[in-house]
């Protein structure tokens, strides 16, 4: 926080950050107040075809204040740190705008104050690697893709960043956390006449540069796949038995079930609460879905969430039965459950909302061959373009797909989109593999906050009666 403190001193303050915050929080008559400060730095590199099109660096600092009065929140975010006390007062005033008859009593899941400092441990911190090294590596991937047959163009998007966050609240918590993040996407674009097809790869890490090194073989592979898609047929739309690879099954776990486990969708919706009753069966005994921010070195890992709640492993589904869900302090209190440490904000411009961390389907015992076994006509779907959910219905799109005929992988297909109702689809998972893989690429978007670093994963899974879109 050195630059920030210097900045405050420059404005005539002469106090430590902690004192400054505790002074600003005093005597406003709110039920609860918290304050976030953040300093961040990032580097972005983008290629389009052979051109290194954008290379930029950014520095950003700012903060926010959140105040709770009778169940209603006020939120103030800022770049300028002067007048902190006035900003707190504004947040309290905003919180009081809700008419008292609709506001409930003070309700946040109770927590012991935490004072801690978290520093990432990295072998090779990407944010400390020179631009020249990064460019050399990305050039090598780009050259491989662009020199492959039928490849017209490419995209590379690389981004690394470091955030230093300070959190304090009116209950006495004071936490400093530093976090690094790294994200790379490679895309090869093939073209022949009017046909354009693409294939891509997403990687990421908590700032460890080695995660994006040595991907030359993968770069070659996506280039040849993009070219192979040019003459590939489109799947005939309809209902199929599908096998999902670990990457796409991870996206399924995230989109189809993970978002439904976010309690801010549930806690004020009585009908939805009846659907999501703990103890209800959602799938077979082989189905376990877990969200866990405590696993070391995944992009969705962290020690405290943005409300200062310590994190823990959370079983969402255990042996097919709904066991838990993801909470902020507020949703936990309203639903009479425990805060899980899932209140997260992408940066200081936004209040924390309930988000996932590392979400995955736990491994089972089926082998890939067993899954293929008795499928007469099905689709094997791999990799992802994206996914989205409306809670009940989800869609996600596979970057790579093959027909399955008579228990064997057959022709390559154009990318397909899968959709379904989450409740029936979970019941229709009839085989879970043993080969858990975690996918660290991409990011999650919700409520205008995107992309949040998360990871997701799964072994291969098989789903009966899945709707696959095509022409």
């Amino acid at each position, binding site marked *: 926080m050195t630059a920030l403190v210097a900045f405050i001193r420059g404005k005539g303050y002469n106090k430590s950050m902690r004192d400054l915050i505790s002074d600003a929080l005093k005597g406003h008559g709110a039920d609860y107040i918290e304050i976030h400060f953040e300093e961040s730095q990032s580097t972005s590199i983008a290629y389009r075809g052979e051109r290194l099109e954008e290379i930029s660096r950014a*520095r950003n600092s700012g903060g926010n204040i959140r105040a709770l009065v009778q169940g209603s929140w006020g*939120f103030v975010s800022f770049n300028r740190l002067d007048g902190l006390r006035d900003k707190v007062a504004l947040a309290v005033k905003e919180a009081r705008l809700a008419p008292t008859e609709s506001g409930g009593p003070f309700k946040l899941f109770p927590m012991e104050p935490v004072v801690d400092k978290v520093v990432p441990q990295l072998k090779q911190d990407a944010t400390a690697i020179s631009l020249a090294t990064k460019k050399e590596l990305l050039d090598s991937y780009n050259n491989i893709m662009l020199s492959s047959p039928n490849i017209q163009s490419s995209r590379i998007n690389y981004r690394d960043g470091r955030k230093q966050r300070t959190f304090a609240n009116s209950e006495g918590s004071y936490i400093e956390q530093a976090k690094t993040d790294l994200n790379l996407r490679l895309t090869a674009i093939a073209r022949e006449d009017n046909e354009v097809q693409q294939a891509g790869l997403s990687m990421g890490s908590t700032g460890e540069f080695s995660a994006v090194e040595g991907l030359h073989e993968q770069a070659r592979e996506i280039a040849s796949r993009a070219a192979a898609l040019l003459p590939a047929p489109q799947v005939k*739309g309809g209902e199929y038995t599908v096998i999902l690879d670990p990457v796409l099954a991870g996206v399924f776990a995230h989109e189809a079930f993970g978002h439904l486990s976010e309690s801010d969708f549930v806690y004020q919706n009585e009908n*939805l609460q009846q659907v999501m009753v703990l103890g209800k069966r959602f799938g077979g005994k082989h189905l376990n879905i877990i969200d866990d921010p405590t696993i070391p070195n995944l992009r969705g890992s962290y020690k405290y969430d943005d409300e200062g709640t310590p994190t823990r492993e959370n079983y969402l589904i255990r042996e097919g039965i709904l066991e838990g869900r993801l909470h902020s302090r507020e949703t936990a209190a309203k639903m009479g459950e425990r805060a899980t440490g899932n209140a997260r904000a992408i940066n200081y411009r936004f209040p924390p909302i309930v988000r996932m961390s590392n979400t995955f389907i736990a491994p089972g015992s089926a082998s890939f061959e067993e899954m293929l076994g008795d499928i007469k006509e099905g689709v094997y779907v791999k990799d992802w373009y994206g996914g989205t959910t409306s809670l009940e219905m989800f869609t996600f799109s596979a970057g790579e797909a093959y027909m399955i005929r008579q228990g064997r992988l057959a022709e390559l297909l154009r990318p397909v989109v899968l959709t379904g109702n989450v409740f029936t689809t979970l019941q229709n998972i009839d085989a879970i593999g043993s080969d858990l893989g975690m996918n660290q690429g991409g990011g999650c978007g919700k409520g205008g906050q995107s992309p949040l670093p998360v990871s997701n994963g799964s072994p291969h899974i098989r789903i009966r009666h899945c709707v696959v879109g095509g022409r």
Partner: protein
Amino acid sequence: MEHLMEVLRSARKVAEQAEVFSVSSPDSIGIQFEANELKQVQTKESSSTALRIFKEGRIGFATASGGGGLEALVDMAVETSQFGSPASFRFPPRFHRDYLEVPIFDPKVEEIAMERMVEIGKELIAKIRGHTPDILCDVQVTKGTSSISLINSQGGEGRYNSSFFGLSLEGILVRDTDMLFVGDSESSCRPDFSGIDDLADRVIWQLEMAKKKAAVSTKLLPVIFTPNGVVSALLSPLVLAFNGKSVLEGASPLKDKLGEQVFDKKLSLWDDATIAYGVGSYPFDDEGVSSQRLPLVTNGVVMNFLYDLQTAALAGTQSTGNGQRAGGFPRPDISSLILSRGDVSFQAMVEDMKEGLIVEQVMGADQGNILGGDFGGNVLLGFKVENGEIVGRVKDTMIAGNVYQVLKELLGIGQEARWVGGILQTPPLYCSGISVATKGN
């Protein structure tokens, strides 16, 4: 402006050319209702500054916001310039258009009190619940002003203010495991309180049409895309294809099609940054190039692509005034798009259908190969038409198609257009032969 001059002066010492851009929003206010109740009131103060330099012929770029960042701007830009792309253009020495020519600031926005915004949210929720009492509405009422400043080392200098007022509603109705999502939004540079009624009426129409359920079968069907449907299903591939960057690298399916008829003769589309009080409007773009009304498609013929300075220079053409920054590097992007009206009423389109779909909202439509023009996704909100009548809402239904095939021959274009999200003004489009897939075949 003074701190921008300071950054420009220190950049000039190390670079051949330089440009400083800044956006500041003193207080954007957002009122959020969750599950029909006021949940949160937000005030956001933000400012950021971007520096672009040409050093030894290469582009360097850096952004900063908050304390301590401005001093670092020049160093960061110099560092990136070692690897940046060769600069192929010059910064414009004069910004021709006076900011008064494109009105996008309404001082009335500043006068609306938070309390009034809360009232607006309540009114809107009350209207919707008057129709469907057990619906849960999330409503956002937002407003704010921004001040944009741009100066460059070639003498170019400009500044303008804009204002914003927006209203959005998402309603959810859960019955057992069935979830119905409805919703719509309005946005403008000026507060328009009649928009509340329009928005409520559209959402009530959605609720009314969704009262019954209907099933379709897996086959090719005609589809009416409502204005919302056009945006959620068809827009992304087109925006990408008309982007000068896609054209320059040869990835756009339209790259060789200038002057050729690619779309239905009834279809015309233009980008217009000069619409009074349009949220996508501006007097000059984020690089200082005057905004304009740019035809993209005229009677089905491809007319223009969207360019910023660098892309235009590389393509051997002129910037179209579409250089925009979403917090980062300037890139070509749409301002606001307008799709021409046709001559068919919505009712006539519905009556014309023996069996078909009305698509209002598609989920995940831009996850496929949008560069190739593909769209496809789950019909989040859509209605079945049978023998000229809307018979109910469809579920478990996917549509898929390719915009270049679908828009080549249209069955009809609606005679009434409306704005969606401040991005696109469009009538409904009546399309044939869309692939529909559903559960149970």
